[in-house]
């Protein structure tokens, strides 16, 4: 009874927060658009429904595009969940996505395996390599106490320039005007799950599997337990006899592996060549995802969906209406800020709590009364 009421409140609060956030976004839309209602329609329901000459049709391609967009962010979101759970403020997910994409891409071009295993090998190699890369900040932290925040931040740039160097001097396809590799072999391409150009590849399934795996890992295994306890209170974990150093390394290596896997699946699933020449930003989205999911892997796909849906809505709004694309940043920022506001409606929550508690107490008294006796000692 009490729990149901609180769950209901939680859902209502989330809905209210979204509505408020969108209302704030709407203010900006009204400011910048001549057709604000059409713009809002595109933002809110455009990703699901399209309107053609008065008829409304469900647009599966858009939904697939949203799922496709979730692939890298689910991975980085999970990576951040694991690392933040161990209280490691490691920001190198960004660099690992890039490195994973690069390694996967290069193997996709140059490795010769004439079967679907090609793609698997590419992705796994990227995964392992990024796990190894993450050893740098992890070991520096554990062995020397060097801030993982600093080393991981620097590592992002180091990865970027090393990748650019090799891309440019060793792997670039010189017939192209932009720096990119030759096309991936068809065996390395992650197959699409659905017809059309949505780029929703098998990677999406892998991402969901990874979510389940990480959720199990975090809540149903001794390593996940140790990671969480270290994140809550490192001294306590040490005192309890856990191998804190090893676990901290593990968390970051897993973070690197997940990011690398996400990067390689994204590159091999979406593009024909490896072409990233700057940090792709999925690491930061991963942080947002993890924060919205409150570090719980189970909620990561939901948070990733929320962001991908919002992005798609914004993109449609700017493609089909006169809302400039930079406005999107303002709207998204506003939506994040309000959506994540914990204190939102807290007054109402407290009232609900008081009501529930009073009821509980009354029931307790009544119970005691009916059980006989009656008088208090």
């Amino acid at each position, binding site marked *: 009874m009490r729990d149901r009421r609180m769950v209901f409140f939680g859902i209502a609060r989330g809905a209210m927060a979204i509505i408020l956030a969108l209302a704030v976004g709407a203010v900006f839309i009204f400011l910048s658009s*001549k057709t604000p209602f059409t713009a809002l329609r595109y933002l809110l329901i455009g990703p699901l429904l399209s309107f053609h000459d008065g008829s409304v049709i469900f647009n599966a391609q858009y939904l697939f*595009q949203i799922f*496709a*967009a979730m692939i890298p962010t689910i991975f980085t979101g999970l990576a951040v969940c694991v690392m933040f759970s161990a209280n490691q403020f490691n920001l190198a997910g960004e660099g690992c996505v890039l490195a994973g994409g690069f390694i996967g891409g290069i193997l996709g071009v140059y490795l010769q395996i004439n079967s679907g295993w090609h793609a698997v090998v590419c992705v796994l190699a990227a995964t392992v390599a990024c796990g190894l890369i993450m050893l740098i900040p992890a070991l520096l932290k554990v062995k020397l106490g060097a801030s993982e925040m600093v080393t991981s931040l620097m590592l992002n740039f180091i990865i970027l*320039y090393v990748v*650019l160097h090799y891309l*440019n001097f060793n792997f*670039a396809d*010189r*017939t*192209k*005007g*932009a*720096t990119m590799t030759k096309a991936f072999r068809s065996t390395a391409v992650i197959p699409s799950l659905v017809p059309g*150009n949505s*780029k929703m590849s098998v990677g999406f399934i892998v991402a969901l599997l990874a979510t389940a795996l990480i959720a199990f890992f975090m809540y149903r295994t001794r390593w996940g337990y140790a990671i969480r306890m270290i994140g809550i209170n490192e001294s306590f974990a040490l005192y309890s006899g856990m191998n804190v150093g090893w676990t901290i390394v593990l968390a970051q290596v897993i973070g690197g592996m997940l990011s690398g896997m996400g990067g390689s699946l994204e590159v091999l699933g*979406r*593009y*024909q*060549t490896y*072409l*990233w*020449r*700057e*940090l*792709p*930003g*999925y690491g930061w989205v991963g942080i947002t995802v993890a924060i919205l999911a409150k570090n719980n892997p189970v909620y990561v796909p939901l948070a990733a969906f929320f962001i991908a849906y919002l*992005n*798609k809505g914004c*993109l*449609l709004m*700017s*493609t089909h209406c*006169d809302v*400039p*694309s*930079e406005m999107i940043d303002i709207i998204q920022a506003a939506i994040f800020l309000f959506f994540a506001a914990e204190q939102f409606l807290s007054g109402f929550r407290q009232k609900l709590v008081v009501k529930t508690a009073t009821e509980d107490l009354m029931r307790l008294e009544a119970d005691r009364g009916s059980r006989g006796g009656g008088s208090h000692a």
Partner: protein
Amino acid sequence: DKESEEPGKTEPEGAVYKVINLVNGNLGDKSFFDSAEAGLKILADAGRITYETKEMGATDADQPKWQETINDVASMGVYDLIICGTYQMPDYLKEAADAYPDQKFLIYDDTTYVGANQNVVNLSYRQNDMGYLIGVFAAAMTSQTTVDNINPEKVVGFIGGEDSPVINDFLYGFLEGAKATDPEVKVDTRYVTNYFDTAAAKELGLAMINDNKADILWGVAGLAGNGGAEAALETGKAWFIGVDSDQELTLSTELASITLTSGLKNVGDSIIWFFDEWDAGRTYWGTEVNLGLVEGGVGYVSDKNFAKYAPQEVQDLVIAAEKAVRDGTIKVSSAIGDETMGVVALREAMQP
């Protein structure tokens, strides 16, 4: 709002085309995006087209947006022509062109899949030709000590956005032009590694001026290139050359005053030219239109500071070089498709 169909304008001769311009970056680049936009605006003002411009963001994180938008727009089937540009778009364009064979596309500044689709026209520009002329000019100028701020050392500078084929295409021409003009000239080439860190570009420019006595800097680094102009202005020891559009018009008065010329890439003009041809019944679907000096696809600014400061002999040299390139006596190498990395070898050889 970019829809600018105004009633009461002069009636167009041909059809009014409905055009959408997809910018895989942001306007305000003072370069090809702005140039394309300007061309379209002229066409729209003349009532020959109606158009919308969509900016899709400039970063790699926006690449999925580019993909989705071009597909989305093509699927609508309401536009007579979809315009996009740069060497970053061809893969996405090809995908959409395959999926929507009835939709017409134009891509400028790319040559990747010429002929693969019969509904796509490629406009490309010989930036290496333009680089050649700028190279001739810079090499001739750097020993003109009678001109203010010019020192006897034969060193000029090239500030590139990044070490990539397009940028190196400019560079290749620049190096060859400089070398042909004066074999003793050295070119200090440095890259910002992005197109927005003006401050870092400025540091590079300052180092070129202070350490190697470069007195002419060519900035080919998008917005960051301006850092080169600032370095020249603040030291008072060097001149700047702009790129893509006439930067004497876009820079502040002070910076413009030390800008000698700009290498031009006339995307807007080429788009207008394309519509002229279309109206005249000449179409180029499935082919590449390579626009060099002759076609007006590239050029340089020869009025203003160029006319004012460059000694006549230098001007003559540049004009002669232009003629030679136009009539094909001089073939400028291109960095695009340059498997041998000749540009890198030349770059190292000419580094002071």
